[in-house]
């Protein structure tokens, strides 16, 4: 009897739970974004304006996001992959064509971002933030030249055994290929062999291969790391010894995009979100939190003053040519990169 009672209670609880989640489906939005990358104020503003409940789940890398969504049954409406991955997402049939390029706020897009190579006419993507990948060093531990990939590919004595390498395959492979002198997205086996050997030789000199750079750099847990510019900016605000280096051998410029998934359950709310973030004030909110640049005209006046002259957001003139826009590499090249990467992470 007791058992039946407990069972019926459980059943009814489940029913309530299920029906509740069904009822909320009209006013819900499930966002899947990078960790520590979404301004809670932005979410709150969106929730109030549209009467929608937003859930935020985070991931650490493009590969994890792709893997999770591809596995199916993920429950997300919106994901924020990097531009170089967008053609993959489109090719795998994972995206819904919501045509942000035709939305009301599309007029605010900066001209050079209106019709990017990875998504002509902006049929799928709305811009989130863009930035560069380089190295972050604590000058207390090392005061030499930081504008080089040698920080992690061939660490100087003071940093040996103390460098962290963020396990973002596309960025690291790009930096490593540039370091040995190859072209981005190359599938040249001789070049890649050099890359593989260099990485494998450098790995014993690394401390770890983990995320959480902003916190660990500001607290001093890490004194050097491969890092993104905005994250370094935030670390510097807490620990002024941290500087950002633009590797002169070559560094990737990436741009994260907001897309709606084909099997999204809350399509209207998702479209509303894409439009929402193209407003200058909201784009400024996004940038102010993570400290990266955005692609919306007129947002500069709403952003914090220290972002205007920040070294992390203004590439020094002599290093501008070293930056290359991260592109999607061919499947053959990707296969080789994955093979090298797995050899490295084992």
């Amino acid at each position, binding site marked *: 009897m007791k058992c039946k009672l407990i069972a019926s209670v459980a059943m009814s609880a489940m029913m309530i739970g299920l029906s509740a989640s069904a009822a909320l489906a009209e006013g819900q939005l499930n966002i899947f974004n990078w960790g520590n990358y979404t301004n809670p104020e932005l979410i709150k503003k969106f929730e109030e304006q549209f009467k929608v409940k937003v859930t935020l789940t985070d991931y650490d890398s493009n590969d994890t996001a792709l893997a999770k969504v591809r596995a199916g049954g993920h429950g997300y409406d919106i994901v924020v992959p990097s531009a170089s991955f967008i053609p993959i997402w489109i090719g795998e049939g994972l995206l819904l064509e919501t045509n942000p390029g035709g939305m009301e706020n599309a007029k605010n897009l900066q001209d050079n971002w209106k019709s990017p190579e990875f998504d002509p006419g902006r049929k799928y993507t709305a811009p989130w933030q863009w930035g560069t990948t380089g190295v972050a060093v604590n000058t207390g531990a090392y005061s030499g030249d930081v504008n080089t990939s040698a920080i992690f590919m061939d660490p100087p004595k003071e940093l040996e055994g103390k460098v962290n390498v963020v396990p973002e395959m596309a960025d690291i492979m790009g930096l490593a290929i540039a370091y040995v002198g190859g072209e981005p997205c190359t599938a040249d086996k001789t070049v*890649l062999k050099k890359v593989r050997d260099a990485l494998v030789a450098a790995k014993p000199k690394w401390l770890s291969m983990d995320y959480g750079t902003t916190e660990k750099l500001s607290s001093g847990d890490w004194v050097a790391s491969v890092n993104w510019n905005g994250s370094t900016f935030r670390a510097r605000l807490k620990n002024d010894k941290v500087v950002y280096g633009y590797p002169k051998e070559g560094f990737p410029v990436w741009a994260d995009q907001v897309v709606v998934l084909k099997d999204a359950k809350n399509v209207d709310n998702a479209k509303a979100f894409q439009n929402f973030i193209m407003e200058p004030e909201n784009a400024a909110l996004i940038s102010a939190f993570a400290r990266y640049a955005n692609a919306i005209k007129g947002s500069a006046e709403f952003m914090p003053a220290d972002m205007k002259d920040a070294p992390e957001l203004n590439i020094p003139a002599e290093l501008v040519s070293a930056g290359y826009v991260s592109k999607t590499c061919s499947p053959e090249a990707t296969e080789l990169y994955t093979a090298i990467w797995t050899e490295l992470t084992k």
Partner: protein
Amino acid sequence: MSDAPATGTQSITSGAQAGVAARRNDVRNRWLLASPALTIIVFAALGPLLIMLVYSFLQKGLYGGVIWKFSTQGWFDVFFHKDIFDDTVGFADAHLSIFWRSIRLSFATTILTLLIGFPTAYFIATKSEKWRPVFLFLVTIPFWTNLLIRTFAIMELIKNEGVVNSVLQWAGLITSPIQIMFTDFAIMLGMAYVYLPLMVLPLYASMERLDFRLVEAGYDLYATRWQVLRKIIIPLVKPGMIAGSILVFVPSLGAYVTPRILGGGKNLMLGNLIELQFGQGRNWPLGAALSITLLVIVMVALLFYVRNASRSGVKSHG
């Protein structure tokens, strides 16, 4: 019952048949009673393992997932490795080194917990009846607290800015922090901390049943404390030691959270390697094959325990 009259024998046979029928009925009812539990477990625990076995024989998809074509590449990759550039085939020493690290660290964890757990269990077992439940309770509580919390607690202790380093620096013993985090040692420390109660409890169960008259006899025969320990106590509590070792070794082998947080992504254990295949590694068949390998190793360890336990004449648990 054997000298019953003829009619009685009749009724005995039919009574016996009725007995058999009742027994069969009873067994069937028991199976029915057990069926909901079995259904849930088959659906959400055993069944998926079979699916995973199937997946280990499929081809991997380019961006994750599988292509439904038969392939033994997954199993091949577990043990062997084709160099990307020379096309030479050799042992996958990266995998093998991870296997070896997992076994090595699990073994070290087991030894460490044994060294600490044995005296502790002995201490509790030799306390008065009143105090024993209290101590047992104290040992069990950390076990029921969240694994994450415990790993986090250890992390706070051994970080560069953590308590251990701060105390050592304040005492003047070292000048700059010792790097404990992100090493194999940190992982072992974390696992030993997490699984210590699992060693103490079976040891205690064995020691509680220890007949101290044997110990007293040993002393009467002029044995030293060390001899009594070595020749009387340890052999008698061996079942508990084996049970505790298995209870620590098996979860350590499959540990995932602790190495992930304390190892910094560079020192992978088997659990992390498996997870990698479902993320950046984009190689589900390999991940499935590795999981099955882990399962096999664990089953072998368990089998060893069961055979050992029954050989020493201990009634198996339950």
